[in-house]
């Protein structure tokens, strides 16, 4: 049955409105990043710069990062963020999936308590952990290193991947695994050969979430990092707006670049995000 015409118009108008509200600020971020500093603070207002410039992006990518150049250091922080986020995602997905399977399929004592325990770790405000964790990382000699950040983030993000994967596994029908086990397969075998292949949407969704959490993290990065050895994007951006000097255009340029990887990844895997939050479509 075809929907009413008024309805169709309504939903399309609503969609356009939504698009404007969502893309508007992002578009403004981009426009500001290519506006020269003078035009950004000029009165009257410039909707689009009369002399757009990509000098800030050029600086970020082409200047040599030998310590002083703020823009070039941003490039290094992008690389750091990427390494840290990828490492964290890989480890937490691997570890979290194993544990998630146990929570989803196995019966054992303290199951609910342990699950709640893991969940509470995720819920901890970072401020609770900062100083003692700083000591641990410092004693391991991992301050201002990417590895130190990865270790820290894994411990915070694994509970999250464990929880989401556990929910996902639970929505998968157990018949297939049980059929395999009856055929002589072990639990673990069933896990690797049946559950994992079926869980691609869930894995992608969890991986994307984990990546974004790591990419986004600020407080620990602020306190654990100091130099371009390990400084990540959020810290670099917060430093652009300093006490004495803040070029809004540079903040926006950094923002555009900081948003690109997660946005691109999210767009690539977006089909999986929705599918990954439950076990796919309705059972046939």
């Amino acid at each position, binding site marked *: 049955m075809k929907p009413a015409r008024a309805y169709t118009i309504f939903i399309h108008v609503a969609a356009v409105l939504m698009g404007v509200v969502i893309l508007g600020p992002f578009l403004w971020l981009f426009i500001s990043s290519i506006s020269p500093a003078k035009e950004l603070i000029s009165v009257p207002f410039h909707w689009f710069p009369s002399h757009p410039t990509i000098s800030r992006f050029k600086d970020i990518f082409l200047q040599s990062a030998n310590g002083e150049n703020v823009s070039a250091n941003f490039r290094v922080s992008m690389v750091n963020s990427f390494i840290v986020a990828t490492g964290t995602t890989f480890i937490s997905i691997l570890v979290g999936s194993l544990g998630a399977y146990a929570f989803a399929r196995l019966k054992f004592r303290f199951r609910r308590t342990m699950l709640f325990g893991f969940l509470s770790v995720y819920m901890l405000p970072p401020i609770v952990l900062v100083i003692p964790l700083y000591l641990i990382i410092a004693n391991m000699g991992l*301050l*201002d290193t990417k590895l130190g950040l990865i270790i820290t983030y894994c411990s915070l993000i694994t509970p999250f991947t464990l929880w989401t994967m556990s929910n996902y596994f639970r929505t998968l029908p157990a018949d297939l695994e049980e059929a395999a086990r009856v055929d002589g397969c072990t639990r673990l075998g069933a896990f690797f050969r049946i559950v994992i292949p079926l869980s691609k949407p869930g894995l992608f969704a969890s991986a994307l979430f984990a990546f974004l959490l790591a990419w986004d993290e600020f407080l620990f990065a602020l306190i654990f990092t100091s130099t371009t050895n390990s400084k990540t994007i959020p810290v670099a951006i917060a430093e652009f707006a300093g006490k004495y000097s803040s070029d809004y255009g540079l903040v926006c340029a950094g923002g555009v670049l900081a948003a690109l990887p997660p946005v691109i990844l999210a767009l690539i895997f977006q089909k999986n995000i929705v599918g990954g939050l439950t076990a796919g479509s309705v059972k046939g």
Partner: protein
Amino acid sequence: MKNEESITDRQVSRRAILGAGAAAGLVTMMPTEGFAAGFSKAANVKGTISALFMKQAGYSDTDVAKMTADFKKVYPNVTVKTEFVAYEALHDKIVTSALAHTYDVVLIDVIWPAEFGSKKMVVDITNRWPASWTNDMLGGAVATAVYNKHYYGIPWILDTKYFFYNTEHMAKAKVDEASLDTWDGVMKAASAIKKAGLVKYPLAWSWTQSESMLCDYMQLLGAFGGQFLDASGKPAFNKGGGVQALEFMRKSIVDGLTDPVSTATAAEDDVRKMFSAGQISMGLNWTYMWAMANDPKQSKVAGKMKVLQTPAGPGGKRPGINGSMALSMSSGTKNPEAAWAYMSFLTSQKEQNAVAMDSLPVWKSSYTDPVVVKTSPAVVAQAKKELNDMILRPQVTKYNAMSLVIQAEVSKALIGQKTPQKALDDAATKAAAVLNA
């Protein structure tokens, strides 16, 4: 202090005085021999040290890199790792790194010696401090890192807030520039400019709820003859000059002379931006604003501005807020000799004179040195006067906590939530509670 023959000679003589335990070297006036002797002394200082600085203010990263490279020439066996963080993150970095002894040398703000010194996070360097420094440094500089009559750092970045104004606006509104000598004159000028329709708000300030706001308040409190804490250390800013200063601030907003954005999010750099865009006619700011607002590439008012000493209040007083910073030795350092060598090298007159355009030296005689004056004649002329007459925020261990509660109350008065007197009374009560806790 006379300009020394060579920096190494100076290092040698200072080290002898300090009695670092090194064997007596040959201190000669012959540069080459002195250099050789100094070289062997300096060569005894070894190791790797880490130093924490602040980004994008005072000395730039490039300046520090240059100074560090010069240091390496004199102390070839010391490796220095420099790190830069935003000012906002500096205090917390020092706090968290104290546990892990990450840094040997740290840059501290003038409001932190009491806190860090009392908690033994930075080293008491009184026994290393040569008497000559007290005479040779500007008075305002010496006081920077003093707590309880002990020195906890070597003054390095000297700064205060100057009064900047747009000469074109003054001319168009027919304001006599000499009248800008007093705050009264400034307000009259602002009214004239506003009446002439040149700008909507002639003034803007860094009154966002932060330490920046307190700097302005203190500078005005000094101008109106007020006291922050009385002789017994109790809050006294809610009487006399302290109240007048806040009333003055609030009145400038109510009268439509101050841009309301000042109390919202405006920090020092916003004042600079608005001034550079010709949006405001006058403002208080740190030394750095001069070069940037006079740069035609980033300012519309380049060449159309002047800098003055901060205006005087009704009683003629005009102290500048001491916004200086000092280099301190972290208490966890494993190499105090190298740390001390680095700190004193960076603060030495020769090094400071070389980068005077970014931050003025702490040494008195630098201000008559033509090389230094040439970097920024207008600012140096005012700096000579203002840096000798500065007002310090109280050196108490709980300064930060006290500052936070006062900022909150002052902020309320500025946006009209409370009267200045009530806000300051509440602030005084809360501040007293913090101090006594």
